[in-house]
């Protein structure tokens, strides 16, 4: 679909969501508003009820504009080194994500190369790779944190490991497919030149795998972010968007939860858009667009 024809469906869905959201804010926040009114022995007209439910300090469901202003305030009106700053937490999650993403991508590429070049590796390693993804990360994350913690590692590294654990998988799968994408003709051609394995890898398999590579990177990046956020939950104290959402949930501060959630979504969108731009530019230059 072209950009233009995508615009209207997206906008109409968005509008419906926002309207529903405001509606639910009224419904979910009204018990507290009625409570307050009763205590002050006043009765509420419908417009009064709506305005009260849309402006509570600790709403069950904050409205979009409350979330937006919370995000604005905690971004612009806080020092970015303060624990109250959303920028501070986003930065922490961002660095964990990038670290985990780099580890996961490297591991994924190395595994894919080993799998493509060696049947024994393919047969012995592939089942473990798949099994690794069937273990719920929520159960695994605390164990990784504890294990690495007792080995003297804390802070960024354990979380990056959890992030890597999720992000290497789409990279392996995509890159195995990509490295196997050269056709028989291309491989035969290499054989007629008596090319070595590493030469075939560098001159044919890797360039040919680029479209798969970028798709894997996008999936890997999204997984790395989820991993970082999940990794922050059992780590405690370290900060980050996951930490902020968890503490928001512990203290019933829904604004923290929602603003953290949206920051995570924006971060994901920004990272994936960035990869998307790289993908467009590089594949176009290589004339590999599909």
């Amino acid at each position, binding site marked *: 679909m072209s950009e233009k024809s995508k615009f209207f469906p997206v906008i109409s869905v968005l509008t419906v969501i926002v309207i529903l959201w405001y509606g639910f804010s009224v419904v979910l926040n009204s018990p507290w508003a009625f409570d307050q009114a009763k205590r002050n022995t006043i009765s509420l007209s419908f417009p009064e009820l709506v305005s009260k439910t849309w402006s509570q300090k600790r709403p069950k469901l904050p409205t979009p504009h409350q979330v937006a202003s919370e995000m604005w305030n905690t971004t612009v009106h806080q020092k970015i080194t303060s624990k109250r700053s959303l920028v501070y937490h986003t930065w922490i999650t961002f660095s964990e994500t990038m670290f985990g993403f780099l580890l996961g991508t490297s591991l994924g590429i190395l595994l894919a190369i080993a799998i493509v070049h060696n049947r024994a590796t393919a047969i012995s390693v592939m089942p473990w790779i798949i099994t690794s993804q069937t273990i719920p990360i929520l159960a695994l994350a605390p164990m990784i944190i504890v294990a690495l913690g007792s080995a003297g590692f804390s802070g960024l590294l354990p979380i990056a490991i959890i992030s890597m654990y999720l992000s290497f998988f789409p990279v392996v799968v995509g890159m195995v497919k990509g490295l196997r994408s050269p056709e028989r003709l291309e491989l035969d*051609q290499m054989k007629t030149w008596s090319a070595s394995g590493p030469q075939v890898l560098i001159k044919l398999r890797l360039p040919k795998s680029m479209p798969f590579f970028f798709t894997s990177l996008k999936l890997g990046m999204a997984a790395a972010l989820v991993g970082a956020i999940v990794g922050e939950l059992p780590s405690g104290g370290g900060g980050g968007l996951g930490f902020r959402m968890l503490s928001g949930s512990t203290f019933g501060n829904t604004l923290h939860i929602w603003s953290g959630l949206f920051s995570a979504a924006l971060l994901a969108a920004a990272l994936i858009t960035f990869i998307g731009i790289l993908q467009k530019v590089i594949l176009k230059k290589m004339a590999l667009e599909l």
Partner: protein
Amino acid sequence: MHQPNVIEASNLHLSFETNDGPVNALSDVNLSIKKGDFVSFIGPSGCGKTTLLRVLADLDEPTSGAVTVNGVSPRDARLARAYGYVFQAAGLYPWRNISSNIKLPLEIMGYSKSEQKSRVSKVLELVELLGFEKKFPWQLSGGMQQRASIARALAFDADILLMDEPFGALDEIVRDHLNEQLLKLWKSTNKTICFVTHSIPEAVYLSTKIVVMSPRPGRIIDVIESDLPIDRPLEIRDTKKFIELSQRVREGLRSGHSDE
């Protein structure tokens, strides 16, 4: 006058194991090719032309029989880079321009940068593509791409050129032109060329030796030594000799069919 055989095949058999049982792709193939020969392989689809070429190139292994290329096994000949192989599809890399596509085998074979450069311009001149170094494959017509792929096979010093229907996907006018160029190139380089084709005029026009094949099982049914002069303008196709040769090829093809 006595020249050594570049390619020698005797009692060659090859059957592919498939799910529907073995397929006899080559059966009792005997062939000798002298240095400097231009040999065409012609026959209906499935008669094993590609398979025979692939055996010579060590891309497929015969089930039984003996083959030598330059007096050694196909594998050793391949490792010694004795031949260039031109596939039906040009197989140029879209991310490399023409010059660096031609450099690809040279890089693999470890030629120096300056050597690569001089060889690229030499072969581009041979296939009349000078000036297109910086163009990318998608900027070239099909015929030009195929010429680039021939240039790539010529760039290293292989004295055997194996060509599997290199012009099969091109229209007749482009084909005529490329045939003329190929003949010129063959004369100026003194390479041994094995050329697969479906076209009788193409086979007769180009070859010093025409190998007629027939399918099920793939075998050679006639080997025709052509006595056309070495200098062949396109008009030679209207001469009596040319037409006689064509008829003999056609008869061979027909007799192969009547066996079925």
